[in-house]
């Protein structure tokens, strides 16, 4: 569904992405992991066309994204920080995005009701807490039931209840055959929803494995233990060399 080939991007002398090649198939939930500044957000933004790569190509549904913009109708994006025009109400923001994506008239408003966003739709964006803004961002990402969902730190700032609702939604959409890309630092939140793990460090791809493989390799059951164990092994390997 998404095919990334030899993607490279630098900001000045800093290499944010270094020759990354990845393939994401539909019906999978892929977690992008790595320390701060490892290139996760740059990778996501390259897929969205917000960051223009130096080298390499990205194809979505076998079509290479260049100056094309229509491909983004297949994507729902939930940003890390959601900031909206201060004097707009939640209802207006949702209506505006609907107006922009007129090509799609089938709305998935399940999250809006589940997260209780419909009850506060006349509140202005300025008056909202960070967590409520995250809820609005989540609703907007799922609203058009796109084939690809890109969620940047979706559970950071959400209360436990909202976080569970969102996780259930992610699993449900993934089972419908959608591709879900998630970045998160909260590994326990990814337990049970992720199928594959991409680990980036300093802009390089360290590994791309399915959770089953990782489980087999490390004989751990929790995702954070698995990652820690793999990273330890990597370290000892490089130390041996």
């Amino acid at each position, binding site marked *: 569904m998404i095919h990334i080939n030899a993607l490279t991007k630098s*900001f000045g002398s800093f290499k944010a992405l270094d020759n990354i090649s990845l393939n994401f198939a539909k019906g999978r939930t892929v977690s992008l992991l790595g320390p701060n500044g490892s290139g996760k957000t740059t990778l996501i*933004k390259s897929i*969205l*066309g*917000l*960051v*223009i790569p130096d080298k390499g190509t990205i194809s979505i549904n076998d079509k290479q994204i260049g100056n094309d*913009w*229509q*491909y*983004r*109708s297949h*994507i729902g*994006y939930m*940003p890390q*920080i*959601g*900031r*909206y*025009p*201060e*004097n*707009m109400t939640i209802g*207006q923001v949702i209506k*505006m*995005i609907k*107006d*922009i*994506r007129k*090509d799609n008239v089938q709305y998935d408003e399940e999250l809006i009701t589940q997260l209780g966003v419909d009850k506060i739709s006349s509140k202005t964006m300025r008056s909202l807490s960070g967590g409520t803004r995250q809820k609005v*961002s989540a609703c*907007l990402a799922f609203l058009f039931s796109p084939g690809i969902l890109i969620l940047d730190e979706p559970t950071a700032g959400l209360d436990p209840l909202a976080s569970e609702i969102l996780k259930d939604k992610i699993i449900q959409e993934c089972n419908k055959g959608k591709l879900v890309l998630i970045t998160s630092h909260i590994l326990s939140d990814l337990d049970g929803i992720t199928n594959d793990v991409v680990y980036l460090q300093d802009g390089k791809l360290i590994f791309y494995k399915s959770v089953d493989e990782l489980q087999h390799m490390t004989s751990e059951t929790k995702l954070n233990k698995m990652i820690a164990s793999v990273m330890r092994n990597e370290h000892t390997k490089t130390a041996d060399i």
Partner: protein
Amino acid sequence: MKTIMKYVVADLIRNKVIVVYAIILAVLSFSVLSIDENPAKGLLSLLNVTLLFVPLISILFATIYYFNSIEFIELLLAQPVRRNKVLLAEYAGLTISLSLAYLLGVGLPVMIISPNLAAITLLMSGFLLTLIFTAIALLIFVLFKDKTKGIGAAIAAAMFFTLLFDGLLLIFIYSFNEYPIDKAVLGITAFNPVDLARILMLLQLDVAVLMGYSGALFKKFLGTGTGSVYVVICMLFWVLLPLMLSVRVFRKKDL
């Protein structure tokens, strides 16, 4: 593009700064116009207010608004829309709101108290200045990554055009006063939109003494009619060039 613009305007007309800007302009205009019996003098005072405040407020407010909207612009760009449409919609929304504030704040009192051609010219120059300085703010936004640096650049640009430029022009005239530099000065004036706005207005009022050197030259060489057309064309270039440059730069900008 219309959709985004509509919502940006809807957001901005409820913005406190815009509302206060319109009210202050209205209070100033009413008081200035009612103090003096001679409406031409009142208009001149309003011209000075326009030349000082409109560039500064437009460029500062616009720059801050663009930088504050960066996350929102990202979200819009993640939707199936063209990049330049999002940028131009933000510009259009801002210009409409700021011009509306100016046209209501100054236009309403002026049109009530002394409706004439000079008044319309004043409104025209204020409107064009709003267009120009919002466009320059857009260029600053796409060129700078950092908000603080952007605001610094906006203040510097406003100061350059409202204060520094005339000083430099004076030095130029003073050092070359033995040469026939009349036409050169005419050309140089085109590089400052604030000067252009001043000349546009003064060509309408019969106050040659107050026009200063370049204004008098305009009247002498071009006359009121051609002079005004030339000035307006120059000012429109000042809108279009920053806009076109911004779109070009924005096409390759990483967000």
